[in-house]
């Protein structure tokens, strides 16, 4: 047993889990082309969920703050992006890739700037007074979530809204007999870029060093004279902006969004964060990919089980590792 875990540890340890999952699914599904389609769908879903979840995980890791209102950023991101896209509908539908991508860039920028502003507001007005008090934190952020959902309902109404996709992201590429939706590739790429960016910032820059040190031992970093609260606002704003981008991407993926979107995604985000372990983006990525793949495979193999699949996955992993796969917080 000891030798076995060392053997697996050398080849990546828990990071092998998604590979194992994919291989197991390959055997069960049988048909390589549908397996490939499902795997790509799962990976791109995982990447979008990663965008939404990474901020929550970092925020908890650094400041011991659990933001139940995180899903408000997801919904707002989705709705802001959808509004910008429909305002620029001329550009979105145009035949020029340049105009298409400009519309997309504007939509994402709007989501990002909204996320940054809302994150700043949330942190300084709502959460600051209740540091170090988990009970009141949960209650307050829950209250903020209720209020934000009602604001979305008041602004956009309760009816589903159609999200326009930029023209060049429509359609699919055919590789052999596997068809790959372009939008999924794009979502996967964007998530990957975000992950690599976060990884480099956290592991290669001075700010990242401070953030990681703060996750490890906050008091010590403060004792060395660094203003960790300022750092925290930054992390909070970036985390919120990432959630907004994730929401915007998800809106394009679903193409029809309702105000319930944030609440639905929140459950998935929580499960991802719990599976991955709080405080590390590697863990969050791992959890997101696992959840994305499981959701797609189970949805294909046993549609009835699809709803409970995430819960079952979480239960198994918690029984095996009560603190998640890669926790950064002890």
């Amino acid at each position, binding site marked *: 047993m000891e030798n076995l875990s060392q053997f697996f540890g050398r080849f990546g340890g828990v990071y092998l889990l998604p590979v194992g999952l994919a291989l197991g699914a390959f055997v069960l599904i049988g048909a390589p082309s549908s397996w490939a389609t499902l795997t790509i769908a799962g990976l791109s879903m995982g990447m979008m969920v990663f965008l939404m979840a990474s901020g929550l995980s970092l925020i908890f890791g650094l400041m011991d703050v659990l933001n139940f209102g995180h899903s408000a950023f997801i919904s707002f991101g989705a709705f802001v992006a959808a509004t910008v896209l429909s305002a620029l509908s001329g550009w979105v539908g145009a035949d020029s890739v340049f105009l298409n991508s400009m519309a997309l860039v504007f939509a994402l920028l709007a989501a990002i700037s909204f996320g940054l502003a809302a994150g700043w507001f949330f942190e300084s007005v709502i959460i600051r007074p209740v540091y170090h008090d*988990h009970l009141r934190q*949960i*209650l307050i952020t829950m*209250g903020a979530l*209720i209020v934000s959902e009602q604001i979305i309902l008041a602004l956009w109404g309760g009816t589903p809204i159609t999200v326009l996709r930029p023209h060049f992201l429509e359609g699919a590429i055919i590789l052999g007999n596997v068809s790959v939706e372009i939008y999924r590739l794009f979502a996967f790429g964007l998530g990957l870029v975000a992950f690599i960016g976060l990884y480099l910032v956290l592991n290669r820059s001075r700010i990242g060093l401070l953030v990681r040190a703060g996750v490890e031992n906050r008091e010590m970093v403060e004792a060395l004279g660094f203003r960790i609260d300022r750092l925290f606002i930054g992390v909070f704003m970036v985390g919120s902006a990432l959630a907004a981008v994730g929401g915007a991407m998800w809106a394009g993926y679903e193409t029809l969004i309702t105000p319930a979107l944030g609440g639905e995604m929140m459950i998935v985000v929580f499960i991802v964060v719990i599976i991955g372990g709080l405080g590390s983006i590697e863990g969050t990525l791992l959890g997101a990919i696992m959840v994305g793949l499981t959701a797609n495979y189970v949805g294909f193999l046993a549609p009835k089980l699809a709803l409970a699949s995430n819960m079952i996955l979480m239960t198994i992993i918690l029984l095996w590792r009560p603190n998640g796969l890669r926790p950064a917080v002890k």
Partner: protein
Amino acid sequence: MSASLSKPSFGDIAVKSTVLLIAALLCFAPFLFQDVRALEVAARICVFIVLVASYDLLIGYTGIVSFAHTMFFGFGAYGAAILLRQMGPGWDAVILGGLAGVLVSLVVATAIGLLSLRVKAIFFAMITLAAASVALVLASQLSHFTGGEDGITYRTPDLFKPAFKLMVDEDGKVLRLFGVKMNGKLAAYYFVFVTCLLLFFVMLRLVGSPLGTVLKAIRENEARAEAIGYRVVAYRTFVFCLSAAIASLAGTVYAVWLKYTGPDTALSFAIMIDILLMVVIGGMGTMWGAVIGAVLMVIAQYYLRDLMGVAAEATAKLPLLPELLNPDRWLFWLGIIFILLVYFFPKGIVGTITQKGARG
């Protein structure tokens, strides 16, 4: 605690007499408020007092936050509803359904408790939230059993039929006492009232017992309680199961009263938010708070919306404001009140009043 040992403070007396007054009003509600809507409000208040008090056992007395309380409420309601539908109206269906609901609640609560109460407390809130959402989705998907989004309508035991004659006068018609018909509706209301009263007394007794003191000790200082020798995880799991069972019973009672069970009345997240608001408004960590919170919230739910409709019409010409004053947006205002309460009066109405009296 100190307040009840020493001379009762002014605030303490005020709170307890208010609760007594509420109990008296609820007891004679069918005679005092003779319209259908008021009786509906009174029954809802009774059920929610029990539901909120059982939630307070968790959040106020033990300091654990669960978002799965409506799930247990729903188990009880659906248990009774499904059996009443399958077996026809009868007491056996109600009792079996109630027991089945309690059993399912206990199993699920034990599983969740053992799985997540031993790890970080913060996981518990997230896991219960996830479990509750799965239960909600399952209820709408398994439409075979649960009737899906439409829910189930069914008939309750004959005693509770509006046409049932509890007492008859000489002509064989339903007897009227103080202008109130002695019919099944009245019997149903008193069924709700008495069951809720019993459940409330059970909880009241419980928090006054040594067990209640241990729970408070865990809330105040977990490490110390553990060091003294109490098995914190076991106590937490026990309380979680207990409050789940009581919530489930409350669900059964509500299902019998409503003669309808659906996601909106028994499982939806909106009910969870209502419970949270009631606990926080009334005051965490006191059973009396549950009473006052539930009464205020239910009355607000029924009557505040009318007021908001009037306000929305009055401001119809302003931008955005009428949208926010729309009766459907009432949660917006409650959310803001909720946040302000948690900031400025974390002890809620009862806690704040009791404290004031003790100081003076």
